């Protein structure tokens, strides 16, 4: 975990609402793992007060990439950065995806901005793994396939790919894969993760979920980001114990 004053390098629009920013941040880039995130100070003053957490979308040499939509004031300010601006970043934070193990196919399941962590994951997966990606969105222009491989899409309104949720699509398509040889990596809105969690547990799939939560610190000192453990006995911290959890670890 490093607090690095990074240099804003570029911003590009991926589609109407989504931006990709590239930041020169050599120390964080050197130690980052897929599924980890950074907590970014989006302004030079105390407004907004808190940092904003973003998944590491990709690492390219000394650069880290982030993928985001304009949501509120913080992302609006981030979007107005100019090349050369300094960006105060804490990272890499959190646990990251477990990549090692005995599986043939990495099944990526992403909803909306949930596609963000996967370009980096795909880059880091061992070369012998097959990859298939299921991506959902409300409509065609909200389906984010940036940096993904072998993509199947689903939209709520049927404007692209399967007409329905990405988890419904997954259920149908998974029949084509042999159960014991896949591992699911997922990230997206809570209802999607919940449906996927249920499905994975019922069917005994090996499945990792990337969770979100309101956060203050992002590294375990504020206790602001709890998620209930599966047994209901304690709270885990999304920022430190996660954001990646096994599907059977948490109660959503």
């Amino acid at each position, binding site marked *: 975990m490093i607090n690095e004053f990074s240099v804003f390098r570029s911003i590009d629009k991926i589609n109407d609402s989504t931006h990709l920013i590239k930041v020169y941040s050599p120390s964080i880039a050197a130690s980052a793992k897929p599924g980890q995130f950074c907590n970014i100070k989006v302004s030079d003053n105390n407004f907004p*007060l*808190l940092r904003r957490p973003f998944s590491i979308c990709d690492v390219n040499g000394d650069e880290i990439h982030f993928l985001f939509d304009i949501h509120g004031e913080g992302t609006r300010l981030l979007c107005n950065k100019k090349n050369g601006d300094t960006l105060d970043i804490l990272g890499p934070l959190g646990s990251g995806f477990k990549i090692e193990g005995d599986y043939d196919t990495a099944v990526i399941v992403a909803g909306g901005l949930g596609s963000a962590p996967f370009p980096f994951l795909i880059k880091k997966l061992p070369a012998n793994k097959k990859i298939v990606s299921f991506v959902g969105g409300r409509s065609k222009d909200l389906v984010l396939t940036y940096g993904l491989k072998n993509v199947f899409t689903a939209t709520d309104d049927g404007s692209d790919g399967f007409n329905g949720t990405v988890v419904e699509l997954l259920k149908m398509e998974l029949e084509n894969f042999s159960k014991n040889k896949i591992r699911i990596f997922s990230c997206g809105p809570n209802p999607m993760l919940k449906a996927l969690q249920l499905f994975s547990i019922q069917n005994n799939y090996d499945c990792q979920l990337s969770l979100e939560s309101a956060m203050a610190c992002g*590294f375990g000192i504020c*206790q602001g*980001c709890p998620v209930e453990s599966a047994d209901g006995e304690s709270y885990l911290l999304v920022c430190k114990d996660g954001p990646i959890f096994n599907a059977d670890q948490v109660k959503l």
Partner: protein
Amino acid sequence: MNGIDLSVNVGGLKLKNPVLLASGTVGYGNEIAEFTDLNKIGGIVTKSVSLKPRKGNPPQRIVETPSGMLNAIGLANVGIEKFITEKIPFLKKYDTALICNIAASTVEEYVECVRILKDEDAIKAFEINVSCPNVKEGGLEFGNDLKAVGRITEKVKSVTDKPVIIKLSPNVSKISEFAKVVKQSGGDAVSAINTLVGTSFDINTRRPKIKNITGGLSGPAIKPVALAKVLEIKRNSDIPIIGIGGIMNWKDAVEMMIVGASAFQIGTVNFINPNAGLEIISGLAEYCEKHNIKKISELTGSYQI
């Protein structure tokens, strides 16, 4: 830094500098140690520990507000047993004063906790949290009751020789009355302020953004209130004060000392800048040098009114 004496003595608690990390904002020190050198910090106040472990409140626990944040963590903590076996050993390694913050729901429980902990050499003082706004029992029930605060102070003092600091609630009309009672009851210092009660609602769902409904407001937004409370105590009592509330940088820290604080705690800023404590220490030293202050304790209560 040339020869400026940054050390302070707060009601018997000796600190190498006046910077303390506030309870609940650094856990038990291990995570923040990755970003900052705890050996340079005056002291660490641990997350409130209670007799039994507490799970804490369900999510959502925090929300950002203009220049502040609300939290309702609900005193989540490992409990006193694990605190002794797992947390103290780690904290011992650092050359910084360890102040143990205690939360409880009865007077007896406060006393019991202190009794269990009093012989831990590593603990240099106790901070008694009578002002947590986010739990049903204890917390503000005590913090807003003069008699209860007096009784707790007295009973806790009767079982330990270590300095006892009472952490006061700002959610009262006259905080100085509480400071006076602490003094009369044998308390060594007060710390002020804990968070202000606040809330925030989602206008679409009409639900509270924080599951606990209300939370405690901290951060720069409350700095003017914290300064006024510390000043009020200083002008009405001679008990040493540890100032807390909205300190983001060395300027805020100097301001807090000027209005009356002998030492101060930084809380919310740790979430944003985990190295803030060290930056504040060097800022303080430079300020002293510039203003020809030899001992930082000269700053305490040096307001010109």
